[in-house]
């Protein structure tokens, strides 16, 4: 996918995100825990990195791409159970949610603050 966009227009933003679709675990909670544990950086978002379904998710993807570090994404619109359970697991009511090393970093407002202060870049190292 990455190459398709870059061949014709080298100004197209490079894509560092990769959507995760596979779930591990018997219960929804186990699936949620596996998602945050198995991936160093994972963004729970609406849509995927190529076609975000919400402005806040698009902004989050944009920042992560700008930092040029690989990251995973999970489309919470694709799974209502995960969408609900992660809110409770995280004690955070909205999406997107950025998780790094199994810990919630925050939503898009927090990401903007951390991006502007340079802390987001350090977090992803």
């Amino acid at each position, binding site marked *: 996918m990455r190459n398709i966009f870059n061949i014709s227009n080298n100004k197209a933003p490079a894509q560092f995100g990769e959507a995760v679709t596979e779930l591990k675990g018997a219960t929804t909670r186990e699936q949620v825990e596996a998602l945050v544990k198995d991936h160093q950086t994972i963004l729970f978002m609406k849509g995927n990195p190529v076609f975000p379904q919400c402005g806040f998710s698009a902004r989050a993807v944009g920042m992560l791409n700008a930092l040029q570090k690989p990251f995973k994404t999970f489309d919470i619109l694709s799974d209502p159970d995960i969408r609900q359970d992660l809110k409770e697991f995280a004690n955070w*009511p909205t999406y997107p949610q950025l998780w790094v090393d199994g810990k919630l970093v*925050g*939503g898009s*407002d*927090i990401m903007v*603050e*951390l991006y502007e202060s340079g802390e987001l870049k350090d977090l992803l190292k």
Partner: protein
Amino acid sequence: MDRIKQVKQLLDGAFPDSEIDVFDLAEGQDYLGITVLSPAFKGLSILEQHRLVMDQLRETLKEELHAVKIKTRVKND
């Protein structure tokens, strides 16, 4: 119902000695900007600061939370 006033009142009650600003980011008061400058944030990460504000809103604004933009800062004495 004036949602801005309602949210301001709620936060004023929850965060004493703080500077709180609530404003409309779109017409119709369904996308609110909220800034809270409070001594209560001392020593907390941004996530924890936002969580404190979010916890107050959760009760009354369950449906509108997607459209809240929060900014927090520590207020020093």
